[in-house]
């Protein structure tokens, strides 16, 4: 019974993706699947305008990941190692973008910092505050781990300095959590649409906006091809998320 429901749920996820692939490879989808024959022309047609947009999105996502590690890492360390009412308050503040819907936050950001929009700075910072809760959720439990803290003390008692302890003990121990944080942040930023809606620099859209534009202006077939290109870019990232989760130590009760 539950196996059947699981299978059906997988099917529910898979069917639209396959249908989109079929649409992207059909000459005329309105005549049915592969109506008018099978073709890769739509991909060839969709790729050239899509390439710079994808590149821009990748750059934004990479920048957001780097910023997450640079400011989120130390924040996670502080929250994990110095629990106090102050860190709890910090937790609430960081989680504001989880509670406030993206489109609302987008309105708030564009209303407050309209001058930062054209350069794209507002977009990157918006993505940063939106993804920071996920970085914290992945890193704080890993950094708070008792065994890791014991190992760090042992390393320090053996004469290792702070930087060496971080490089040789802390980072390797948090590698799975780090991978999870990095991939999650990357995927979220790459596909972010809601927060980006009003803060995205109009002249240089990111990938979701290119898709959104095609959905309202293009035929179904090239729009499907663009969607498949987008999915092809997030799929490897997703595989990394799943692999990281599978490698994380499982608690067996």
């Amino acid at each position, binding site marked *: *019974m*539950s*196996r059947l*429901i*699981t299978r059906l*749920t*997988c099917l*529910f*996820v*898979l069917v*639209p*993706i396959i*249908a989109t692939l079929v*649409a992207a490879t059909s000459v005329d*989808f309105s005549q*049915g699947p592969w109506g008018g024959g099978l073709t890769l022309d739509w991909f060839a047609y969709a790729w050239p305008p899509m390439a710079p947009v994808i590149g821009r999105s990748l750059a934004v996502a990479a920048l957001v990941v780097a910023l997450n590690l640079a*400011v*989120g890492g130390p*924040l996670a*360390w502080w929250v994990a*190692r110095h629990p106090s009412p102050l860190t709890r308050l*910090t937790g609430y*503040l*960081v989680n*504001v973008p989880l*509670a406030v*819907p*993206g*489109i*609302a936050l987008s*309105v*708030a950001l564009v*209303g*407050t910092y309209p001058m930062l929009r054209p350069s794209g700075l507002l977009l990157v910072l918006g993505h940063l*505050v939106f993804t*920071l809760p996920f970085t914290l959720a992945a890193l704080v439990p890993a950094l708070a781990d008792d065994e890791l*803290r014991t190992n*760090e003390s042992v390393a*320090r008692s053996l004469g290792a300095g*702070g930087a060496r302890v971080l490089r040789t003990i802390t980072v390797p121990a948090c590698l799975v959590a780090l991978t999870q944080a990095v991939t999650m942040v990357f*995927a979220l930023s790459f*596909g*972010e*649409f*809601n927060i980006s*809606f009003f803060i995205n620099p109009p002249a240089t859209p990111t990938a979701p906006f290119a*898709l*959104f534009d095609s*959905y309202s202006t293009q035929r*179904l077939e090239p*729009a*499907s091809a663009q969607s498949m290109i987008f999915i092809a870019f997030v*799929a490897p990232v997703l*595989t990394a*998320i*799943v692999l990281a*989760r*599978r490698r994380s130590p499982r*608690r067996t*009760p």
Partner: protein
Amino acid sequence: MAVRASARDRVAFAPAWLAALPALVLVCLFSVYPVLIMVANSLGWGRPPADGGPTLEHYLRAFGSTAVLDALINSALIAGGAVLVILVVAVPVVLHQADDDRKGRGSGTTDALLTLPIALPGIIIGFFAIVLTGRTGLFGLAWDGFSGLAYTFSGLLIAYMYFCLPRILGPLRGAAATLDSALTESARTLGASRARVFATVTLPLLLPAIIETGGTALAVALGGYGTVATLSEGVRLLPLNVANELTTGYRLAASSTLAVVLAAMAVLALVLGRALSALVRRAVAS
């Protein structure tokens, strides 16, 4: 030992909270402060001359408009309905996965497939609805009734179910993994049928997590903009109105007001989920 070492670090080097400072400054500047400004805008405290001083006028106008009220009710119904349906579907799925994981035969493909939608922006999910049940959709070929379903209430409900699926499966799976299989096994050997074990042991123990996950997913679904933006010619939801106030003539105060209403609904879902979950947890387990 570790605590003492870090205490010493604090004395010898820079204070530890300094590490948190850059992130905190950014969060306050680009998340907390804009939200406060948004609230202020909605109350007429924005920059003059656009706003003339404290007023509830924007809220009165919003709640007086049938279009806004319709969108609000549709939002609540579609987000709530999608979360409820997916919760019902997710419970057997996560129990099945937990069982597989315990026996060490968990399938990576299933895992990846069920996680995939989390990396897809809402607009793609809306597009899926068009490909399958749009005016020239695939399912429309099989049965005419499917044509244009994407733009109806049921079509939007199914699209939001797709959107909610990974956001409910993920956290619920963690909760299911912590359920002790010895509990259900003991209940079975005591003579309880599978259905009885589910109703008397599994479900009560999973209920707090179900409620909390439901609240969080409801908050996210309420704010989901991309899906409905793609399907905007159909049923209207509140996030659409929030955007419209800005895209069709820059009415920041009106848009902020609707954004605050939307955020308030999401926060309410989140807080209610947490509170109810804590209540049930205490009733169930203490």
